């Protein structure tokens, strides 16, 4: 009798903690605790993430040439698409500053050769985050890919451009509490940008490493 009560309490507690998830089977429908455990499906993604979440990240980005790099601050909005996939909308800011690095070569072609951590950028990106593994306890690896659009600015050279980078990243999400998690991820951006000063189309190639926190909504 006491084992049956414990099983019932366990199921009720789980239903309360993850209210957005489908209701778990009741003790009445599952006569023994062993049956309750066996009927619970292994999660495909962090159970604490929920169907919506927000996050903030801080880190460093490296660029060079005419891809901005520097301090990276990003905000995330997550929306569940499937059992393992979330839409990951990002607003990112890169602050690199820097000194003038553009000049006219002897053919009168305007060139820029900025350092790894120079330039500023404001970007929004639409990506999809895919979690790997099932039935993990705390650490959830993921891949992320998508497309962004951003405004790049090298103020010291008066160079401005519109960049369209493809993003590919990977990271790990660590569940801390039922509504909070920490993340760490690396992101590669590869694309092109259209710039003024006769620069025209230029490649965009950068790398960012960030860490942050996410909250369930």
């Amino acid at each position: 009798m006491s084992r049956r009560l414990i099983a019932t309490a366990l199921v009720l507690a789980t239903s309360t903690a993850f209210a957005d998830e489908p209701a778990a089977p009741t003790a009445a429908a599952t006569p023994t605790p062993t049956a309750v455990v066996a009927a619970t499906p292994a999660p495909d993604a962090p159970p604490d993430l929920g169907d919506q979440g927000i996050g903030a990240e801080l880190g460093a980005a490296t660029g060079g040439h005419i891809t901005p790099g520097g301090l990276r601050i990003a905000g995330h909005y997550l929306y569940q698409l499937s059992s393992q996939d979330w839409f990951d909308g990002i607003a990112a800011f890169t602050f690199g500053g820097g000194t003038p690095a553009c000049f006219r070569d002897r053919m009168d072609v305007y060139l820029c050769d900025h350092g790894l951590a120079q330039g500023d950028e404001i970007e929004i990106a639409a990506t999809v985050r895919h979690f790997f593994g099932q039935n993990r306890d705390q650490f959830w690896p993921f891949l992320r890919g998508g497309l962004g659009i951003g405004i790049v600015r090298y103020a010291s050279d008066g160079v401005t451009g519109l960049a369209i980078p493809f993003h590919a990243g990977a990271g790990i999400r660590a569940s801390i509490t039922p509504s909070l998690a920490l993340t760490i991820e690396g992101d590669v951006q590869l694309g092109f940008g259209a710039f003024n000063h006769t620069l025209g189309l230029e490649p965009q190639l950068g790398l960012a490493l960030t860490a942050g926190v996410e909250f369930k909504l």
Partner: protein
Amino acid sequence: MRIAALAALAAAATVSCQSSDVSRAVGARCDTNAECDIKCLQPSGDWPGGFCTLLCDDSSGCPTDARCIDEEGGVCAFTCTDDPSCAFLGTGYSCKAVDSKGAGAKVMVCRGG
């Protein structure tokens, strides 16, 4: 297939990265000092198209492929062996012997005039 496409894009990006023998420090075209790290020798017969340069007291203050010459109080100019070795600077430049600064001798550098 996706990996191949990404590799091709990366290769294209690498190829399209521009490089130059000149820089904002020494050799870039210019009309004003703002276009250079330090100083612009404005367009003239001596410096066709303008010439970004550094101020110097001797050649230790210049890049390895440049020497300090006794003009404008001391500026860096590219060394050369003959006229074709100045061709990368464009028309109007040739290899000339000028007074060096800090060494008290003639040195061969690219300049106009």
